[in-house]
């Protein structure tokens, strides 16, 4: 369902990356591991359609996203891909609920019930009407996961979700991500330098 071929991306002559091909079947999760500066974030951005590759193809669920226009790419991403950032980002003038509603609006998947479902499954339903700034670090991370999965994406991309966490929390977060992914029928691709995650994934690629 996810297939990349001969992906290349060049920022400049000093920073040019070529990535190994990825092939991932339905319901398979993937860990992409690599040390800093090797192009992990670049790969994630390529997969998310935030960057466009110089050469090669990315086929997501039958769609070659390297052939989409900027506009189509934005739409495709909004509907099929959820991203969990290393640091949680929100629109700070909106509450948690409004942030989720914005995501639904932009992904064209408005569904009030789903927001409550997700928030309660992540145990932060009571923070619904709070400003994301006022949440604790853990709550922020969970709210960020909620943002990523609110539109029932087929693919969840997570960028270093555990790098700043201790072992205990690291375990908790990755389990939560996997649980949410399977619960909502999404594939999970985690990109990290964190070797602690290896044991949680059957399939991994080293950059």
């Amino acid at each position, binding site marked *: 369902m996810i297939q990349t071929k001969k992906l290349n991306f060049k920022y400049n002559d000093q920073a040019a990356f070529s990535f190994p091909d990825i092939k991932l079947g339905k319901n398979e999760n993937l860990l992409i591991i690599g040390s800093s500066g090797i192009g992990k*974030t*670049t790969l994630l951005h390529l997969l998310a359609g*935030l960057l466009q590759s110089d050469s090669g193809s990315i086929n997501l669920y039958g769609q070659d996203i390297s052939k989409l226009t900027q506009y189509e790419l934005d739409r495709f991403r909004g509907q099929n891909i959820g991203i969990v*950032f290393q640091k949680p*980002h*929100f629109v*700070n003038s909106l509450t948690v609920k409004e942030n989720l509603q*914005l995501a639904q609006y*932009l992904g064209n998947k408005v569904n009030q019930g789903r927001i409550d479902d997700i928030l309660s499954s992540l145990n932060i339903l009571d923070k619904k009407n709070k400003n994301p700034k006022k949440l604790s670090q853990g709550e922020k991370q969970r709210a960020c996961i909620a943002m990523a999965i609110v539109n029932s994406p087929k693919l969840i991309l997570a960028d270093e979700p555990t790098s700043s966490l201790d072992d205990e929390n690291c375990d908790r977060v990755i389990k939560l991500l996997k649980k949410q992914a399977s619960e909502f029928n999404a594939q999970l691709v985690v990109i990290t330098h964190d070797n602690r995650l290896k044991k949680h994934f059957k399939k991994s690629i080293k950059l």
Partner: protein
Amino acid sequence: MSLALLIFGIGIISLLLQLNSLIKTQMDNNLKGIDMVVGAKGSPLQLILSAVYHIDSPTGNISFEDAKKIKNNRMVGSSIDLLYGDNYKGYRIVGTEEKFLELYNAKIKEGRKWNNPLEVVVGSKIHTKLNISIDDELISSHGLRETGEQHSDQLFKVVGLLEPSNSVIDQLIVTSPESIWDLHDDHDHDKEHEHDHDKEHEHDHDEEDEHDHDEEHEHDHDEEHEHDHDDKEITAMLIKFKSPMNIIQFPRQINENTNLQAAVPSYEISRLFKLFGFGIETLTYLAYLIIIVSGFSLFINLFNSMRERKYEMALIRTLGSSRRQLSMMIIFESLILTTVGFFIGLLVSRLGVMFVSSLMEESLNYNLNSFGILNEELWLLVLSIFIGLVSSIIPALQVYNLNISETLADE
């Protein structure tokens, strides 16, 4: 901050526009049908302000005889005598002819016109404000200010109330010239005990005799009352010409050849407007400058907030917003700000008009009220929208060309 500046600028301009238009319409409204005003020598502007707008003191009185000569000139179409002398609680009592009511299209709402001396008809503003009704008796004060000596022995009787006409007559108490003459005759009489009323008459006769023997004969046929008027005075006379062409020549003739003064209201008023026009213009430019500064300030605010919200913008993009959607969001944000600013500015100006109007009403018995939106103000709306648009273009382009990947990787 930028919004406050915008509100301030819009408010000032709109206030100036409103006041300008209100004063102009009010002035023009009262100018209808008056080509020329004749009165005593003095400042022409003062003559106009006192006789047409009833806000300044009159330049003095002129003799009835002299006025008559002008009236009989073939160039004069119609004329209306005005006579001042008294006020009731600061409102002027004008002795005049019935034509005065027609001039302002004033209709009797209740009661009738005056038939006898000391009967008055009261303007709408006054009877509503002071709660005057038919058959009330008013004690007038001498002069045009409330503080004048009271004529407590002679009472004006209210016989009619006027409908609102939105002109100066709303602020006037109208009566016949005889009322004022009689009142002041008696008044003088009271003061000078030695003088006898009849004696005075005889004295007048003598003078007349010396002047003209042929007329003397006619005088004898006249009623005693009529005769009285010949040596009486009036304050001013409103004149309408037979042909508009006379406006150039006739006033000059009067000013040069008689001891009267003629002034053309339309000319004096445009002179007055030129005088304050300079101030209004300067203020208007200043206000436009403020609006432009507000535009800059808005731009800088948006620009800075875009830098602060870069991550938010990138996030919104990753959530599936297109570049255009996001740029439009920035433009709309700015448009909403400036449009809201425009309406608040308009509100501020209306409060200003109300304030100025209440001031003018108190000090000049003059009122301005109309809250319609002027065409010029629609231009201000266009200007606000334009400023909102222009100041948001660069931030919107910034967002449009935002490199999401770089922004997100940059954290």
